[in-house]
């Protein structure tokens, strides 16, 4: 088939099984937009209102489905507007393809209108990027991009696509396969190491699983759940890992890290065998690295060799896909004569239960103001714990992580690594597109939601019945909290003045707005809001302005140095 580059792109995406593409048109992408009109059969383009939102939406789609998210934008400002979104996806290892229009090859380097060095700008925040100079290379480049984005440790791949190449013609045939001599992701963990790890687990007295986003990304949830239950060990999950193991299971002792539970952080501090799976010893998790797990032998399973012994030196490294490694661990345990002994960890569990009885997540419900924690709990009840929950960044994000009990993977979608305010709403659009009938909600703050508020318009256009749960405390709450704790209550620039009336704003965009400011009516009003199955509803919850997120490990402190309520 003889096609233009622009047509090849559309045909390739359909052949690759892509159904949704988020984007925004402009000069250097017009041939592609034309081909979309003439050639696309199943491929649906969703027109966002800002390119950053296109990337976050594709990202939300990818996180919730496991499939790569695809974005199409124009050159120059179109491309630069995607940068925050790309960095967000990169930090959390999300498979994405970002196609950027570029000025014609003959004009590259001449400071042409809407020219930026997209490949150069995005280089440090992508898994890889390409500039397509010859239409003959286009199809195979696209294939490579999808292969790179979705295998090994996933990540975003940018394809910069000059306008003359979009117009040039070439023969097109869908490339079924691709091999790259310089890129060979590990497909299997080392059996000897896996055996050693299992032996170490069986002899542990104070073991703990510390699992992260890698388990979600690597679809290791089922095997992990089996393994943890078989061993009867406590498990703590990172912000990115929530849901991989059911939080409602008694073996789960909550999230760890800066705003983790008392029992999780203390168990980390006192454990003798730490089993880290798909987690990367991030500073928000480890606290002061010098004081991290002082008595532990560490097993670390990760797909990325560069993650292993990066921040913390480990005793048994296992490089491999988490699902395969966990499967092999389970199989080994089943075959083994020596079975897990509950009495090995009896004393340890007694200690953990004592910590747990502190009930570090308790909060005061007596006042007349709505507590943000209570709001999240009520949302959890009303949605029967079965929603897809996206979030922004701040206190509300931590409250969501702490109080919405996630029992399934890919249900909790947040920008954990980069901490990008403005992520939540567009991400929710991506999830809703993937699961039209599911309850999709975004727990956000009045600060964060305003960073991509324009997407209310997109939600109307595509009939996306996302529910916004805005914990409106009138402050950039997380900033205010740090200022209260560490800057003598000088609340510099953290008060949000001149807020819009979010109810009216929602209505102006053609949606439903509901304000909740009374604890007594909260549950009932939430029921009403979530009953509006096919409407986008902005739920503006006026919460206690002074509430803080506890427990908290101040930056740089050890895991045993928590501030409780």
């Amino acid at each position, binding site marked *: 088939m003889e096609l233009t580059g622009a047509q090849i792109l559309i045909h390739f995406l359909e052949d690759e099984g892509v159904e949704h593409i988020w984007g925004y048109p402009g000069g250097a992408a017009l041939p592609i937009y034309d081909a979309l009109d003439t050639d696309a059969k199943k491929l649906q383009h969703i027109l966002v209102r800002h390119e950053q939102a296109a990337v976050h939406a594709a990202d939300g789609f990818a996180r919730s489905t496991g499939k790569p998210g695809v974005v199409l934008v124009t050159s120059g400002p179109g491309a630069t507007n995607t940068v925050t979104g790309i960095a967000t996806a990169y930090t959390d290892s999300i498979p994405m393809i970002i196609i950027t229009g570029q000025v014609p090859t003959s004009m590259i380097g001449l400071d042409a209108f809407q020219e930026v060095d997209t490949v150069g700008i995005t*280089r440090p925040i992508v*898994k*890889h990027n390409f500039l397509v100079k010859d239409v003959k290379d286009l199809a195979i480049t696209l294939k490579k991009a999808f292969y*790179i984005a979705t295998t090994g440790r996933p990540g975003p791949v940018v394809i910069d696509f000059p306008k003359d190449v979009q117009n040039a013609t070439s023969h097109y045939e869908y490339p079924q396969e691709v091999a790259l*001599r310089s890129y060979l992701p590990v497909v299997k963990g080392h059996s000897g190491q896996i055996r050693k790890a299992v032996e170490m687990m069986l002899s542990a007295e104070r073991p703990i699983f510390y699992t992260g986003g890698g388990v979600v990304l690597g679809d290791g949830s089922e095997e992990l759940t089996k393994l943890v239950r078989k061993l009867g060990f406590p498990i703590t999950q990172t912000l990115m890992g929530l849901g991989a193991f059911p939080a409602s299971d008694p073996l789960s002792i909550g999230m760890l890290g800066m705003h983790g539970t008392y029992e999780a952080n203390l168990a980390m501090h006192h454990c003798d065998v730490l089993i880290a799976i798909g987690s990367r010893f991030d500073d928000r998790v480890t606290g002061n690295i010098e004081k991290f797990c002082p008595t532990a032998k560490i097993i670390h399973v990760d797909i990325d060799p*560069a993650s292993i012994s*990066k921040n913390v*030196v480990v005793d048994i490294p296992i490089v491999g896909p988490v699902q395969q490694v966990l499967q092999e661990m389970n199989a080994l345990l089943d075959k083994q004569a020596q079975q897990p002994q509950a009495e090995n960890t009896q004393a340890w569990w007694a200690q953990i239960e004592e910590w747990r009885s502190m009930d570090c997540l308790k909060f005061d419900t007596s006042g007349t103001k709505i507590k943000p924690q209570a709001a999240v709990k009520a949302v959890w009840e009303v949605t029967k714990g079965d929603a897809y929950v996206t979030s922004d960044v701040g206190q509300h994000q931590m409250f969501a992580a702490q109080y919405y009990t996630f029992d399934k993977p890919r249900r909790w979608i947040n920008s954990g690594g980069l901490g990008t305010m403005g992520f939540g709403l567009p991400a929710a659009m991506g999830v809703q597109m993937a699961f039209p009938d599911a309850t999709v909600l975004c727990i956000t703050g009045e600060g964060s939601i305003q960073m991509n508020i324009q997407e209310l318009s997109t939600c109307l256009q595509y009939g996306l019945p996302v529910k916004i749960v805005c914990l409106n405390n009138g402050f950039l709450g997380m900033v205010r909290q740090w200022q209260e704790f560490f800057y003598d209550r000088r609340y510099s620039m953290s008060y949000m003045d001149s807020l819009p009336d979010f109810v009216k704003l929602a209505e102006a965009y053609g949606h439903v707005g509901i304000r909740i400011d009374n604890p007594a009516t909260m549950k009932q009003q939430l029921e009403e809001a979530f009953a509006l199955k096919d409407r986008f509803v902005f739920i503006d919850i006026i919460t206690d302005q002074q509430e803080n997120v506890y427990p908290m490990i101040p930056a740089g402190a050890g895991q045993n140095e928590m501030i409780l309520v």
Partner: protein
Amino acid sequence: MLIENESGALSRVAGLFSARGYNIQALTVAPTEDESLSRLTLVTLGNAHQIEQIVKHLNRLIDVVKVVDLTEGAHIERELMLIKLSAVGNYRDEFVRLADIFRGTIVDVTATTYTVQMIGETQKLDAFIAAIDPAFILETVRSGAMGIMRGEKCLQI
């Protein structure tokens, strides 16, 4: 290391070093007999843990085909220097002698200058420079070290 001979490959390597705060002391790169590949030698400093991390991160780059740490085994290291000296009066003989001692070759001569070509380990080139009064050095250009493993072992794909 061997990297894909493609535009951008070198900047990925250089970008990795600056982004992660590693330093590049020297770097040489040129295509190999297989035109699709470039051979790159990079000199950096770090403890064993840092070097391990650097190697891992380099391997993560899609354009990097193969990396070895030459200092892990016996290897040969060579650098090329061209150095232009102000050579008048007695110094004309003096610099010929000195170049000779260091097995350098004078590759260009004018009434007032010599250009000496010298190949060797980095330290030897440093020593030559140290042996000359800086006032006489007009210009130096050095390639940075290139390395290869001793014996039959090869860096190949």
